[in-house]
C-alpha cells in the first residue's frame, strides 16, 4: 500500500463544480440563469400550464385580463396566456435549433478554413459575403425564398448566424494549428481529421460556447422580429412576434396584447444576456479573475 493516502474523490471539488460556483457567485448571472430556466420550464410544460392556444371563444374576444383569462384574449377570442406560454416553447425551439445549426455550420466552416490554408480564402469570402448583409435583412430575403414555416425560420436564422460562429472558430484555429502539440501530432503521422477532432476542436470551444449564448438571444429576437413583420412563422402558430403583430392593430382597445408577450420577450432576452455575459466572463481568461469576484454591475 502506498504511504501517501490518495484523497477521497469528494474531497477536492472538480473543475466543473468550481467553475459553476464561480459562475453563480455573481448575483446577476444567477438572476439570468433563473430567468432562462423559467422560460425553459414554461416552454417545456406548456401543455400542462395552459389551454389550447388555438381555441377561439368569439363571445369573449378582446376580453380584459382577469380571473377567466389571466392575460386577456385577442381579437379572435384566443387566450393570450396560452399563446404566450406556447410562444415560449417556440422561442426555445428556435433558439436551440438555430444554435445547433449555427454551431455545426460555423464549426465545420471555421475548422476547415482555419486548418486548411487552401480552403481559407474561398470559405471566408463566402462567410464575409453573408456577413455583409444585416442579419434581419438577410433573414427576410431568405424567408422570401423559402416561404413561411417554423423549419424555414430556423434555417434562415441559422444561415444568418453561421458566419459569425465560423469567424470566431477560424480565429482560434489559426492560433491552435501553430502550437507545438499540433506540430507534434503531425510529426507522429496523426491524420488531419484526428488532429482536428482530438486536438483543435476541444481547444477552440470556449469562444464558441460564448458565441452560442449570444446567438441564442439573437435567434429569439430575430424570430420575434420576422414573425412581427409577417414573414416568419405562419400566423396561426403562437409566437411572441405574431401576438405582438396582432396586438399592434388593437393597441388602444387591448394593450395587453402587446404588454404580456412584450414582457415575455424582455424577460427571456434579459436572462440570456445576463447568462451570456456570465459565460463570457467565465471562459475568457482575461476576465476570469474578475469573474471570480462579485461585480458591481
Amino acid at each position, binding site marked *: 500500500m502506498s504511504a501517501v493516502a490518495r484523497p477521497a474523490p469528494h474531497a477536492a471539488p472538480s473543475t466543473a463544480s468550481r467553475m459553476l460556483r464561480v459562475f453563480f457567485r455573481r448575483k446577476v448571472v444567477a438572476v439570468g440563469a433563473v430567468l432562462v430556466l423559467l422560460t425553459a420550464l414554461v416552454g417545456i410544460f406548456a401543455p400542462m400550464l395552459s389551454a389550447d392556444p388555438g381555441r377561439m371563444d368569439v363571445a369573449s374576444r378582446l376580453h380584459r385580463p382577469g380571473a377567466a383569462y389571466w392575460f386577456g384574449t385577442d381579437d379572435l377570442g384566443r387566450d393570450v396566456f396560452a399563446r404566450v406560454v406556447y410562444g415560449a416553447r417556440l422561442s426555445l425551439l428556435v433558439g436551440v435549433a438555430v444554435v445547433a445549426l449555427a454551431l455545426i455550420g460555423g464549426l465545420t466552416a471555421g475548422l476547415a478554413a482555419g486548418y486548411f490554408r487552401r480552403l481559407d480564402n474561398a470559405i471566408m*469570402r*463566402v462567410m*464575409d*459575403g*453573408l456577413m*455583409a*448583409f*444585416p*442579419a*434581419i*435583412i*438577410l433573414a*427576410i*430575403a*431568405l*424567408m*422570401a*425564398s*423559402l*416561404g413561411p414555416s417554423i423549419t424555414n425560420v430556423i434555417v434562415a436564422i441559422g444561415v444568418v448566424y453561421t458566419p459569425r460562429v465560423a469567424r470566431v472558430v477560424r480565429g482560434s484555429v489559426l492560433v491552435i494549428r501553430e502550437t507545438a502539440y499540433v506540430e507534434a501530432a503531425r510529426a507522429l503521422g496523426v491524420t488531419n481529421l484526428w488532429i482536428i477532432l482530438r486536438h483543435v476542436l476541444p481547444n477552440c470551444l470556449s469562444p464558441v460556447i460564448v458565441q452560442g449564448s449570444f446567438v441564442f438571444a439573437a435567434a429569439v*429576437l430575430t424570430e*420575434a*422580429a420576422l414573425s*412581427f*413583420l*409577417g*414573414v416568419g412563422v405562419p400566423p396561426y402558430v403562437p409566437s411572441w412576434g405574431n401576438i*405582438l403583430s396582432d*396586438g*399592434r392593430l388593437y*393597441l*388602444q382597445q387591448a*394593450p395587453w396584447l*402587446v404588454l404580456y408577450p*412584450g414582457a415575455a*420577450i*424582455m424577460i427571456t*432576452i*434579459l436572462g440570456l*444576456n*445576463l447568462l451570456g455575459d456570465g459565460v463570457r466572463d467565465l471562459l475568457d481568461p482575461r476576465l476570469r479573475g474578475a469573474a471570480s469576484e462579485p461585480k*458591481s*454591475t
Partner: protein
Amino acid sequence: MALVVATVAFVLIHLAPGDPAAIIAGPDAPAEDVARIRQSLGLEQPLHVQLVRWYGRLVQGDLGQSIFLRKPVVDAILDRAEPTLLLTVSAIVIAALLGVPAGVLSARFHNTATDQTFMVLALLGISVPNFLLGLIFVLVFGVWLGLFPVAGYSPLEDGWLLTLRSLVLPAFSLGLVQSALIARIARSSMLDVMREQYITTGRAKGLGERLVVYKHALRNALVPTVTVIGISFAVLISGAVVVETVFNIPGLGRLVVSAVSRRDYPVVQGVVLVIAGVYMLVNLLVDLSYLIIDPRVKYQ
C-alpha cells in the same frame, strides 16, 4: 467583397424550391403569365448566363423591374429612401448623444450609484427589441398622452417640423436600444484607458479630473466607441426595416416586407443589395475615421 455580395443577392432569388416564376405568379396563374415572368426575369437562360447578366446590369445601376409596381426597382428604392435615411440618421444621433455621455459618466463615476444606474438601464435597453419599444411608445406617447402621431410619416416637402414630429417616436425606439450598446462599449473603453499610465501621470502633475477625463481619456477611448457607432448605424438601417412597420412609415422596410408578401423578388433582391451596399460603405467610412481620431493608425 462587392462581387461576393452581388453573388449572394443573386443566389437568394434562386433558393426558392421549384420554378421562381411559378412561385411569383401564384398557384392559379395561367401558363402564359408564368412564361412571361420567366422571360422578364431572364430565368429561361442557364444559371451562369443569368449570373453574368446580373453583374452586367449591376454595373449599369440596373436592379431590374418590379413585377408588382411595374417600374424599375431603382426608382422604387429612391422613392422610399428618404424616410429610411432620415429615420436612421436621427436614430444614430440619438444613440450617440445618449450612449457616449452615459458611458463616459459611468466610467468616471465607476462603481457608484450613477454607474450602476446607467448600466442597469443599458442592460434593460439591450434586452428590449426596438419594435416592442416602438409599440410601447405608441401606446404611451401616442395613444395615452396624445403627444405624437401614432403612425405615418410627413415628407420633407410638407415642412421639416412636421417631418421631425413624425420621426420622434420611431427614432427614439431605434436609437434608445442602440444607445444602450454604445454606453456599454464607451464605458468599458473609458475604463481601459483610465488605467493607462499617462492618465496617472496627468493626475500626478496636477491636471484637473475633468481635463484628464474629457481631454486625455475620452479621445483615446473613442476608437472602439466610433467602431460601435459605425456598427450601430449599419444595425439601425436594418432596425429601421422593422420599426417602419410599427409606425407605418413608407420606407425601404415597408417596401421589402410588402415585396416579400407579394413575392416581388426583384424588389426584395434590390433592397437587400442596396442595404448591404450602404452597410459596407459605412464600415469603410468607420475604418477611415480611425485616421482622424487616432494619429497612430496608418493604412498601407
